[in-house]
């Protein structure tokens, strides 16, 4: 089975500091997509950032950036200048090209300390 592993069940960060959430995955494909989703207390899944495996450049969305290491099958999320509103569950996910469903990790709960 092609899995996604998030080894940190919980993380915490001081407001305005930087935190990195880890994710590794298993795949035999060369072309795929990776995602980070945020799930706040409302429980709606919100897309944070997306990375295409064929792109060497790491994706960036404002304070959120990724470190994509294809050979190591690693996809970490860095949150800079953490804000109270960043507190949530964060899920790493991958999918193959096309219509295949997402495979999710078990999530990391991020707390932001004021």
């Amino acid at each position: 089975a092609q899995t996604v592993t998030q080894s940190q069940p919980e993380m915490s960060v001081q407001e305005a500091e930087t935190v990195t959430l880890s994710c590794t995955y298993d795949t035999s494909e060369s072309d795929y997509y990776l995602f980070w989703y945020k799930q706040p207390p409302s429980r709606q899944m919100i897309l944070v950032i997306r990375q295409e495996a064929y792109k060497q450049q790491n994706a960036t969305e404002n304070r959120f950036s990724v470190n994509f290491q294809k050979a190591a099958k690693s996809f970490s999320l860095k949150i800079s200048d953490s804000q109270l509103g960043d507190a949530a569950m964060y899920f790493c996910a991958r999918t193959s090209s096309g219509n295949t469903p997402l495979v999710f990790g078990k999530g990391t709960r991020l707390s932001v300390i004021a």
Partner: protein
Amino acid sequence: SQTIHQWPATLVQPVGSPLSLECTVEGTSNPNLYWYRQAAGRGLQLLFYSIGIDQISSEVPQNLSASRPQDRQFILSSKKLLLSDSGFYLCAWGTSATQYFGPGTRLTVL
């Protein structure tokens, strides 16, 4: 812009009762549609996905079923709910490998 709706938002049902959860998407045509379930404190489990109006794939054999009566409508059903069906149900639509989620339905089976 695209919008995805789910209803109801919250549902409390007795064991053995039927279920119908609805998901609709606006602003796009022929979307891929997905149903996921999230048990308390756990990750997401794929239940069904559909890449076309006549194509629905089931990932988990259980007492749930899915239908797609219209291009942008996806229904999750059960004839008889079990206690284990309690959870948070999320519908998603997808394009170009990216999926966008609805607000979810919290189902409690008593």
